[in-house]
């Protein structure tokens, strides 16, 4: 009844490439975002409607969160952080649709997200400090810290992947076990807990990404921005 959460079965094949069900769910989420973004962005009015009000509220809240976390201008990081947050949130909550399994409950989706975060940290770091400056930041207090900092750069993205995977997969696992024990109304509190965990994990994923990017961007950049602001 309970299959291994580490393996996934292919739904259909595109040529030689097997496509699993979570990939299809991911495509659906991407299509949903494209349609929503077009709907909201196409008709921006001065007197906002309901949809635009929600979007603006989200935008302002996100900007405040980025400013609080990174102590810098949110402009370069807004699009990346918002996309990451909304995607992980939708992917986590997609398990509420009957018959759909959350894509983040499989390790491949989380590995892809963590890879994006890993390279974006490097790109943002090089963009703000320059290549030599970014490489120099690995030897931050002394040169003796270089191996530790290198290991840390790998393990923190690895733990980002495992955290999201473990939380979402364990939620689905617990619900599966409870359903197999007692059928009808008993799993409902666990599903409510799963919604809460999904929202918190999406928030934490994007927040930790911002913290890592903030650490890579460094203090000098921030200091100049704060000086400009005051």
């Amino acid at each position, binding site marked *: 009844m309970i299959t291994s*959460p*580490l393996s996934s079965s292919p739904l259909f094949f595109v040529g030689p490439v097997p496509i699993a069900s979570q990939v299809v769910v991911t495509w659906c989420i991407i299509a949903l975002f494209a349609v929503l973004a077009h709907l909201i962005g196409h008709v921006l009015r001065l007197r906002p409607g309901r949809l635009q009000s929600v979007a603006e509220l989200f935008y302002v809240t996100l900007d405040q969160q980025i400013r*609080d976390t990174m102590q810098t201008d949110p402009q370069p990081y807004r699009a990346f952080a918002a996309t990451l947050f909304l995607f992980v949130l939708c992917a986590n909550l997609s398990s509420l649709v009957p018959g759909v399994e959350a894509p983040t409950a499989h390790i491949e989706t989380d590995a892809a997200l963590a890879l994006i975060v890993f390279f974006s940290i490097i790109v943002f770091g090089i963009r703000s400090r320059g290549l030599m400056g970014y490489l120099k930041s690995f030897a931050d207090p002394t040169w003796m810290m270089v191996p530790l900092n290198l290991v840390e750069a790998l393990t923190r993205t690895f733990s980002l992947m495992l*955290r999201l995977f473990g939380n979402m997969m364990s939620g689905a696992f617990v619900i599966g076990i409870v359903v197999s024990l007692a059928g009808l109304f008993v799993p409902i509190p666990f599903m409510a807990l799963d919604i809460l965990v999904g929202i918190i994990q999406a*928030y934490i994923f994007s*927040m*930790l990404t911002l913290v890592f990017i903030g650490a890579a961007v460094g203090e000098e950049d921030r200091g100049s921005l704060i000086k400009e602001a005051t």
Partner: protein
Amino acid sequence: MNGIIWVQLISIIGAVIAVAFGAIGPALAEGRAIAAAMDALARQPDAANTISRTLFVGLAMIETMAIYCLVIALLLLFANPFLH
């Protein structure tokens, strides 16, 4: 055949021990973290935003330790390198 059964038995026991004892440390740590956050909230209700954000991120960090134990237990049960 006999050896494989022993490996399976020890894997199950190892998974149980990993989850059971691996949950103790994070549980104590989360309790301490929440107690400290409550203390800080009671002293400074104005800083509720900062405190709760830091608390959530910190709890996620602590919880990762328990998640690692869970992943190791699942590796032992479903992807045991000594069985395949």
